[in-house]
């Protein structure tokens, strides 16, 4: 039987993992949004607004596209540009976007989030 502390524990683990991930070379920061709060940690503060807009657009469009093509529950959304990339995941009611340079292995980042 699931205990009440499980989701809280999962969030604590996620935050702990994010703290570790953000210190890695090439990781530009992350945005973790919940329904009423958000944690933003972006290395270049001048890019926060643009990153937040992009993160919201990617997640919102990703969910709509997933519905259109019946992709089921979203595991990951990855957007790659010429300079950087963004990995987004949906964890319950939380939406996470991690920004990184092009050469960073996003698969390793995803695995290290340890979401399962």
């Amino acid at each position, binding site marked *: 039987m699931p205990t009440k502390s499980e989701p809280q524990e999962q969030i604590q683990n996620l935050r702990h993992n994010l703290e570790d991930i953000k210190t890695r070379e090439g990781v530009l920061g992350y945005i973790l949004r919940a329904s009423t709060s958000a944690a933003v940690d972006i290395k270049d503060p001048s890019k926060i607004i643009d990153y937040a807009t992009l993160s919201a657009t990617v997640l919102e469009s990703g969910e709509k596209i997933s519905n259109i093509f019946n992709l089921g529950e979203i595991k990951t959304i990855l957007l790659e*540009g010429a300079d950087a990339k963004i990995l987004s995941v949906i964890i319950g009611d939380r939406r996470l976007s991690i920004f990184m340079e092009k050469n960073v292995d996003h698969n390793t980042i995803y695995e290290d989030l340890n979401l399962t």
Partner: protein
Amino acid sequence: MSRDAFTAALRNTLKEIGNICPDVKCSFLFTTDGILVAGDAQADDTVMEKAVRLFQNVAENAAIIGGLNTFSIVGDNGRVYVSCANDMYLAMVTSKDADMPYLRSVTRVIIPTILKLLESIVPTPLKFVPSSQLVADNLSGFRSKITGDTVEIDHETLNQWSKLLNGRGVGEVEIEAFSGKQARCRVRAIEDSALEGKGLIRIPEKAFQALEVKKGELVRVKPIAH
């Protein structure tokens, strides 16, 4: 080479990709301006246009990371993969177990090669004009009889289309109702100035019935140059 032949060549290319990679459920190409160019037989026009608008929305906000090179969504039941090829985007909907590295290597070779080949055949780049949604109005009575199969559209809309078609006049339009019924009609500007600027397409009775539309309903209208 006409736009139709260009589109047909790309549609056949997508079909062949589907034959090589059966995991591709549907695929389509759209321009970086968000205009749908071609889709394979599995792709539904309305669904593709909806998706293109969403991809375009992502692309417009992606300047901060250097634009949209690739965009992928992995779900429990399948994947969507969008990649940039020349001035176009290729979108593919695949099964969840699709061999993505293989698919990427196939499309990375085929699509740019075909686009390059088509560009070498077409002397000037083809401009894809987006279809517009207009409000259907019934052109009935005596006026309907004298206009034959000619529909009437705003001056402004016709001018905009003409600009996008490098100054070529718009002689005909393809009309598609949301039921999927289609008709191709000649076109001219609305003469009644009171009806200008209302986003109307005035359709003669015969075509109106063939399209099975009602007055006030939206129809999709695509211009065809002279």
